[in-house]
């Protein structure tokens, strides 16, 4: 049940992050970015659902991730999540989010916004990769 809830959270998060990052890259250019970015609070809710269920999963079988020895894939996954957090902080703190808000239908985003979106996609793909390797290393695939 916890795994299902974890996946629901991830699906909601991947959906919003995926659609937003792809739009920043120029996919579905007819979409104005402001209304798309207003979905961000839902991405946060999805992340909290995934994080809470992930925490419960960790408590149920701590040995799979925390060892000893610590599962290297778990450590890498956590590192990637921290990097995603830093990337998001950068997005808000540098005013990029506000700048992207002004990008209307049919308009292009700036190169810096594209870089942040690219880093975001790459890091999220990495999180999924380490999650799969984690189960493999823990013998739970």
């Amino acid at each position, binding site marked *: 049940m916890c*795994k*299902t809830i974890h*996946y*629901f959270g*991830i*699906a*909601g*998060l*991947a*959906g*919003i992050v*995926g*659609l937003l990052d*792809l739009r920043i890259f120029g*996919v*579905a*250019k*007819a*979409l*104005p970015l*402001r*209304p*798309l970015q*207003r*979905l961000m609070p839902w991405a946060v809710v999805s992340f909290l659902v995934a994080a809470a269920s992930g925490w419960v999963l960790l408590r149920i079988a701590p040995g799979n991730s925390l060892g000893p020895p610590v599962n290297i894939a778990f450590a890498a996954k956590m590192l990637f999540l921290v990097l995603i957090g830093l990337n998001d902080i950068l997005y808000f703190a540098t005013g990029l989010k506000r700048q992207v808000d002004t990008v209307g*239908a049919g308009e292009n985003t700036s190169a810096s916004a594209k870089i942040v979106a690219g880093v975001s996609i790459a890091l999220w*793909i990495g999180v*999924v*990769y380490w*999650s*799969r*390797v984690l189960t*493999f290393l823990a013998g739970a*695939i």
Partner: protein
Amino acid sequence: MHIVDILQQWSENNAFFIWLRESPSVFAYPMVFFIHTLGLIFTAGASVIVDARLLGAARQLPIAPLARYFTAIWIGITLTVLTGVVMLGSDIQTKLHNRLFLPKMLCVVVAIAMTVALRSRIASTRPETFVSPLVRAFAAASLICWLGAIVFGKFGVYF
């Protein structure tokens, strides 16, 4: 001899499937599983968000441009299906005997059919925020089936 037995015998002796099952490399089964998960998460996630919009969420988003996302969704579906077939081929008997495998496949097939049905209808939506009852019904079916595929996929481990 039953077709499943014939396929099982073939996959047991096939060099690729032997490597996939037995190699300890992360580039064997874990890589296929990773691509399957990545494809499914993006496909289900993006579809669920589009479905939610069609069902009345985030009304500020115009609908017709969402059709442009379907190319990416189709790439996700293709990756998921291809890797799914490879994973099935690596252990046909166990997977087919899982009681939740067929419900999961049914959900995936209906969800893909809904994706096909929604794409052209979304692209031709005029005015851009109008959603017909038929499109709402398709979106609801798509939403239920993608979430159902996740539920059956996750619970399938225990059956």
